[in-house]
């Protein structure tokens, strides 16, 4: 099992009602799998998770990326800085 940290920002943070979550996930869990798992466990995030941008250890990550050991996964909407 892999103990990971999931960070939420902007709309996701607001809908989740929290900034971060610690999860124990399978070693081979990929980004798509994490999105599915969170959609099931947090239905209030389901809509946001469809268009979410994902980062693993501060780099953008895509659906097939396997989450590394003790990875820091961030979930957020397309950025709107500036």
């Amino acid at each position, binding site marked *: 099992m892999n103990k990971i940290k999931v*960070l939420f*920002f*902007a*709309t996701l*943070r*607001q809908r989740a009602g929290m900034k971060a979550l610690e999860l124990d996930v399978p070693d081979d869990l990929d980004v798509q799998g994490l999105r599915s798992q969170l959609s099931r466990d947090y239905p209030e995030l389901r809509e946001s998770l469809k268009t979410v*941008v994902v*980062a693993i250890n*501060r*780099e*953008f990550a*895509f659906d097939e990326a396997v989450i590394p050991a003790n990875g820091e996964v*961030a979930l*957020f*909407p*397309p*950025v*709107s*800085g*500036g």
Partner: protein
Amino acid sequence: MSLPTILSITEAEIDLNDLLARITLPTTGAAAIFTGMVREVTSREPAHETLFLEYEAYKPMAEAKMQQVADEIRKRWPVVEGIAIVQRVGRLEPQTPTVLIACSAAHREDGVFDAARYGIDRLKEIVPVWKKEAGAGGEWWVEGAYVPKPGE
């Protein structure tokens, strides 16, 4: 001698004079500065008024992505000397500067205008910062238009 590259996510007021001074070398003759500010009255559809903006950042990744923007500028405009990229976070009132991109070089033909333009456009694509808008209808997070691609 290393060239000045100032990258910052800060709650502090953006000090244009200070940042300009820090990117002005003895060899510098030109600097292009872009500043964005909180717009109170928007005429473009949907027309509306803004009470304030609130910015949130994923700070460690934002700093890394700002470094990437600076690296991309240096690769594309190799004679740019100083680069400053500053994003302010927290609650910001109308007419307050929220972001600054400044690029300096020996001469204005050395790409400073284009580099600064590129810097703000690129920040708005890949730097993990979000703004929440407050207006008559309540408060809502602004969703960006850009989805990063693998390798970005």
